[in-house]
């Protein structure tokens, strides 16, 4: 669309910029806070420009550890979060791509029933079924374990649906051609469906990685052992320290660090991510 309306251009840019400011301001404040002396944050006036303690504060987190602030070492927290995010993303993709394959390409008894069972899980996110899920997880002895942290979050239907919809758009002749070419179902899946789903998988991975990384309620419930804390949980722990002022400079530096991996995933997979959302290679 070619248009020449200066006011419209100005107005739309203004809206966009306002949106950017609203989103970025808290991030900026967090960053600024992470570079100040802890006392500055408690003085009553929140500083808006970075202080002079950037190196010192981050050095403190990485080297001296966060025990003072009431949390396990940052390396362990990041590792736990990474394990959880990766396990959820990969687990969900693996399960949903296989179940979508079964539902679309095979005629087995009770297929419709299974389809609806999966469909129903869409209406039951973890938050809704959190008590029974906790009960089951505890009963299986999975509290304070990576399995307990990730498995209940892997089972859900959203991704199955995405793949099902995608497979339904693949012309039937493609699977027939593969059949004539002597490719059995598994070979067809590996040689044709998987490569065609590449962009969908990448797009989904970005979404699920961030979903897993940002999990709060579930890890809070199932982990009591500090060795399994995720970085998101640690922030909550540090904010609610008893009998002392929260160490805002440490908390905010942790917040900044916690934001980096999801940002990196988005930055590096952005091209594939957008491709996966808007186009399919057909």
């Amino acid at each position: 669309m070619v248009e020449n309306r200066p006011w419209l251009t100005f107005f739309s840019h203004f809206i966009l910029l306002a949106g950017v400011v609203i989103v970025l301001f808290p991030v900026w404040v967090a960053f600024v806070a992470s570079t100040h002396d802890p006392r500055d944050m408690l003085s009553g006036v929140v500083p808006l420009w970075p202080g002079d303690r950037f190196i010192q504060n981050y050095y403190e987190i990485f080297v001296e550890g966060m025990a003072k602030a009431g949390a396990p070492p940052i390396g362990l927290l990041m590792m736990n979060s990474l394990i959880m995010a990766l396990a959820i993303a990969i687990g969900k993709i693996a399960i949903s791509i296989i179940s979508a394959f079964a539902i679309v390409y095979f005629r087995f008894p009770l297929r419709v029933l299974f389809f609806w069972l999966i469909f129903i899980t869409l209406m039951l996110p973890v938050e809704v079924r959190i008590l029974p899920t906790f009960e089951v997880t505890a009963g299986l002895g999975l509290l304070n374990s990576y399995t307990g942290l990730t498995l209940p979050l892997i089972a859900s239907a959203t991704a199955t649906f995405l793949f099902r919809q995608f497979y339904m758009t693949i012309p039937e002749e493609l699977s027939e051609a593969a059949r004539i070419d002597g490719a059995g179902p598994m070979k067809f899946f590996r040689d044709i469906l998987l490569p065609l789903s590449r962009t969908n998988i990448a797009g989904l991975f970005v979404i699920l990685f961030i979903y897993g990384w940002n999990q709060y309620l579930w890890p809070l419930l199932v982990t009591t052992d500090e060795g399994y804390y995720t970085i998101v949980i640690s922030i909550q722990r540090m904010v609610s320290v008893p009998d002392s002022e929260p160490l805002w400079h440490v908390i905010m530096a942790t917040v900044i660090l916690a934001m980096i991996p999801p940002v990196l995933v988005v930055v590096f997979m952005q091209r594939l991510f957008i491709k996966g959302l808007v186009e399919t290679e057909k």
Partner: protein
Amino acid sequence: MATILLDQVRKVYAGNVEAVKGVSIDIADGEFIVLVGPSGCGKSTLLRMIAGLEEISGGEIHIGDRVVNNVEPADRDIAMVFQNYALYPHMSVYDNLAYGLRNRGVAKGEIDSRVKEAARILEIGTFLDRKPRQLSGGQRQRVAMGRAIVRQPAAFLFDEPLSNLDAKLRVQMRIEIKRLQKALGTTSVYVTHDQLEAMTLANRLVVLNHGRIEQIGTPLDVYEAPATTFVAGFIGSPAMNLIPVKAKEGGLALETGEGLLAPNGHGVAQAILGVRPEDLVLATDGVAAPGGLSLEMTVIAVEPVGAESYVHGTVEGLKDDIVMRAGPKTDYAPGSRLKLTAVPEKLHIFDAQTGARLNA
């Protein structure tokens, strides 16, 4: 190379819908058979049953000397060309051609030489490493054919392979397919609804309607002596004029009229009289051909198509319009009356009830 024999093949879908009702065809080795018919006549179902993509509800299909009813498509030694080509979008042209051979465990060198050979025949050698989406429709069509050729199968199955191409390319590819099939000598079954494709490609035509064979024969046989009114109306463009008639003393007359149209050579009480547009001519000096048809038509419109024109008109007492082929630049004013005739050899007589042909 192989013969294909269909013996009373039937296809019944869920809900007792019978798509193919006992079809028998005996296809010779190296023959080019075209299945033609309107949509829903069962021609694609039949082809897919030969390919093994549809289960066979009844009867037997033989390819070569074995019954293939329960043989997987990959093991039937056939290759299929689909209407939408069904190329693997993520694979290069080379891999598309090689995929089936790799799955069969053909040696690498052998695959390479077969792919190169097919590429040479089809003139697609220059884009072997491109992806299908970088190719034009005609090129994709060639790749789809290449995928069939490299397999060196006993039979080619074509499922309306040209219907996604534009008119010019379609003519070009039609000739190409014919040339290729002749050169390779591979038995071929070709499905189309386009009667021009059917006429030009086939050694023998199989005209299907409602899951039944109406007629099998060489294109010219089918054209010159259609076995039923359905075939008469389906093959030929514009379609044959079909006129319901009844017997009267001295010959056949329009059901509602009195004037004699043609002699009654078959002693029928009621019949359908067929005459092709190109067989209708103006009665010279108002006198009909002796023993032939005599008809008076009121012109509605003239359609010039370049090399010839089609004159559409009505005949009193007849529901359907009559079409006559005339020379180029024919110009009759609407409403003008023409006396038409046709020689007796060009008249087709069909049974009024069964639609079966009565004259030899």
